[in-house]
């Protein structure tokens, strides 16, 4: 009976959220990933973000491709439907599901192999369409599940486990997304939940596609010195220009310019996220500046993390399409079928 929710018997000690649920209620099945895998830290962050957002657990839809990272969908929110689909195809499947039922929080989990190689075309187009979803890339620079080949995000010259150097330039999902006009681009690190949780919460409230590139080291095949995806490297080189601090009540509409090194961004559902920028002048609403910032950081060998860019004005698939507010799946057949009289009328043009 895999799908019956465990009875909600809150233990005295467990804090509950606005809808009376505990963190437990957002957990999934036991992880079968390697002990210490970065992906499990992402899972934990997602559990906390969902809990803090007080989202009804069954109103989440979890989708993924294939890979160690893509297994993540099984490890959080077991009261939500999950779909561990085919390698690289998470984005179109999520696009279709979201088209059918706009009334849920879509969380897509992918890997760097899944999204930057076999699924690259789909990711590009999901970004372009601005599908309303959270799109997490658990980026470890390798193909974990197939045992350690380089992925397209592997760094030049970084040596894989078997000692051969990767020689091809990496694809940076953040730059790619920025250049494609993505409406929400962030990067974080699986090892830093303080930063990741608020970003996930902001993403969940963003209208449109929120891309989060999470550097998530593979302890098995890529966690050695020299790889920029290892814990060591990221801890040393990470550049946290934004300290997000989430405020879940209040409504504000406009995006303020940075003042005192911080900027307030109004999320689609009215939630407010205050971003503190380390460089006082950092403005996550200026795409060009974001590209420049990322380029500069890369040139210095640094990995900028935080909410790098957000634009709440880009319409998503449904806004562009003027889709009915009622999810398509809930429209009664009677409203969808024009009926026999109309068919008769229609056929006047066929005679």
């Amino acid at each position, binding site marked *: 009976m895999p799908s019956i929710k465990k009875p909600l018997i809150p233990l005295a000690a467990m804090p509950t959220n606005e809808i009376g649920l505990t963190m437990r209620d957002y957990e999934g099945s036991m992880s079968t990933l390697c002990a210490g895998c970065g992906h499990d830290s992402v899972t934990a962050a997602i559990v906390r973000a969902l809990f803090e957002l007080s989202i009804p657990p069954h109103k989440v839809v979890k989708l993924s491709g294939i890979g160690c990272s893509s297994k993540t969908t099984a490890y959080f929110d077991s009261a939500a439907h999950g779909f561990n689909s085919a390698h690289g195809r998470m984005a179109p499947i*999520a696009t279709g599901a979201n088209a059918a039922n706009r009334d849920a929080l879509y969380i897509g989990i992918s890997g760097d192999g899944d999204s930057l190689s076999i699924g690259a075309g789909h990711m590009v187009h999901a970004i372009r369409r601005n599908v309303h979803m959270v799109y997490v890339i658990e980026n470890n620079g390798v193909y974990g599940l197939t045992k350690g080949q380089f992925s397209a995000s592997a760094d030049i010259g970084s040596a894989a486990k078997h000692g051969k150097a990767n020689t091809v330039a990496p694809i940076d999902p953040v730059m790619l997304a920025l250049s494609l006009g993505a409406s929400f681009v962030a990067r974080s690190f699986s090892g830093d939940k303080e930063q990741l949780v608020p970003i996930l919460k902001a993403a969940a409230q963003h209208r449109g596609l929120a891309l989060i590139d999470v550097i998530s080291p593979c302890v098995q095949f890529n966690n050695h010195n020299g790889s920029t995806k290892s814990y060591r490297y990221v801890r040393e080189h990470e550049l946290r220009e934004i300290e997000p601090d989430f405020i879940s009540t209040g409504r504000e509409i406009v995006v303020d310019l940075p003042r005192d090194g911080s900027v307030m961004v109004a999320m689609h559902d009215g939630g407010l996220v205050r971003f503190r920028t380390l460089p006082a002048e950092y403005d996550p609403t200026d795409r060009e500046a974001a590209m420049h910032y990322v380029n500069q950081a890369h040139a210095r060998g640094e990995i900028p993390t935080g909410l790098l860019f957000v634009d709440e004005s880009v319409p998503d698939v449904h806004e562009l*399409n003027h*889709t009915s507010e009622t999810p398509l799946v809930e429209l009664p057949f009677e409203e969808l079928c024009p009926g026999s009289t109309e068919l008769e009328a229609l056929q006047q043009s066929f005679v």
Partner: protein
Amino acid sequence: MTLAPTDTEDLAKGGEPRINDFAVKFANVNGTGSASANNLILRAIFRMGVPVSGKNLFPSNIQGLPTWYEIRVSGKGHTSRSRRYDLMVAMNGQTYAEDIGQLGAGGFVLYDSTWPLPATLLREDVNFLGVPLARLCGDAFSGPRERILMKNIAYAGAVSYLIGIDPQVLAELLEESYSGNPALRDSNQKALRLGYDYAEANLPATLPFRLRTDTGTKGKILIDGNTATALGCLYAGATVAAWYPITPATSVAENFQKLCERHRRRKVTLADGSVETRNDYVILQAEDELAALGMVIGASWAGARAFTSTSGPGISLMNELLGLAYYTEIPAVVINVQRTGPSTGMPTRVQQADLLECAYASHGDTKHILLLPADPKECFEFAVQAFDLAERFQTPVMMLSDLDIGMNDWVVDKLSWDDDYRPDRGRVLSDAEIEEVGHFYRYGDEDSEFVAPRTLPGLTEHGAYFTRGSGHDRYGLYTEDAGAYAEVVERLARKVEASADRLPKPVIQSKPGANIGVITMGSCEAAVIEALQLLESEGMTLDYMRVRGFPFGSEVKAFLDAHERCMVVEQNRDGQLRSLLILEAGGDGRRLTSVLSFGGLPMSADQVAEGIRNEMQE
């Protein structure tokens, strides 16, 4: 493969013209607007009550290459392609020789006599009818664009006179077509008269073949299969379509879009009192066919009726995800409007060569439900059924139409709709139902058709399950256990097998005493039926079966058993239907022979008859 010019002179011998039984071929240059002229003629004939068919033989090109259109008029209702032409409307200088060569003795050529025909083209046994179209239109119209376009309407006028189209019908048609644009209506009207009047004044009053008003199209419509398919999807309640452009499937999605814009839009009043239009559909032009099917799978998984339309190359690209939908048991409706393969092949030519690919698409053990419509009416009906079957059996359903059905206009019975129809959503559980049963086993608890229950994401509080294309047991849990894995895939095999009973039954015509059968599918039907009549008139009595769905039901097996020998008529090189009958209906290869046509042009009755005669002699 090319037919020797047949002698049509004798047809005119009687003195009385042949009524409602002839064929006209139009040779044009593509991209010059001839399609509307040819379509006008087709529709006028239809309006006169005479069964007619139009076959568009066009190149995979946008402008400048030869293109042909064939109109066959048949009072008896034979709508298959004719390869004997009575009148050749030769409007393309590049192909004069070829076109004139295709006429039988006694045939007629209509050409633009603004310029003299090269002497080398003149044939003694053929009648040349000149109309100085370019000159007439040059004088009457200004601007190169209008002159080119109106030349087409002018030849339509001349043809109308020659074959006896009622001018009143033409006038009506123009009135309807250009109701929104009186200027265009007038110039069309003018051009039509130009040709008509010139012909009346200068050409023979009667040819040996002629139209006569009849009632053969009463209660019928003229429609192409892709429009009918789109209508079926609309009526079935499809709300999500995802597609990638490809000839000849493109117009399925484009028609669906148009239909949705007309029938699926609502005005809603917003909180602030303003009124907005809301769409009860989402159409996604995908980045490729993998994505298109992915979107359909996502939407169907979420509970919408969703479909994609494509052709051969797209099916190949969908192979992996077809297997995913099969194994995870997600409905998915795929319309495959077949064209000539392999590879890019001939994108504007017809074939029925994706049958095996579709039946067994994807790696591993798979088998898929197929629907095989023969004409636009069946496209409409089967499209609706496709959704019912996909949801009932939680599996991909592919409807195999083809270019001939999909893009040509066919005369079929008016489409009808039963307002009592309600979609068969199959086994979808609500929270209440789950609570009642006390458990929910996603891939177990099968019904008598081996279908397990499902729930929809976001819509049930207690019905969440995890969908995976990897090994899973009856509960939907990950497994690598041989027994738990096998239990699920064995049920899948039985489930697809069980669907046979719900598929459209084969169409069977039995003749007393016949012990040889002819089997076919899809768009071959018209040619095969006509061929059988032809053969019967020669004393050869044959039974007939057209299969309409796969897996095959008991009727198909019975037909095979009941006949000493069957000939399988199909449009591909390898006899794919024959193969499928052998594998899946217990057919005996020794008793099944093939009659094939795979050059990309719709079959004609004489081809089929010849093929059957040859096989019978062996």
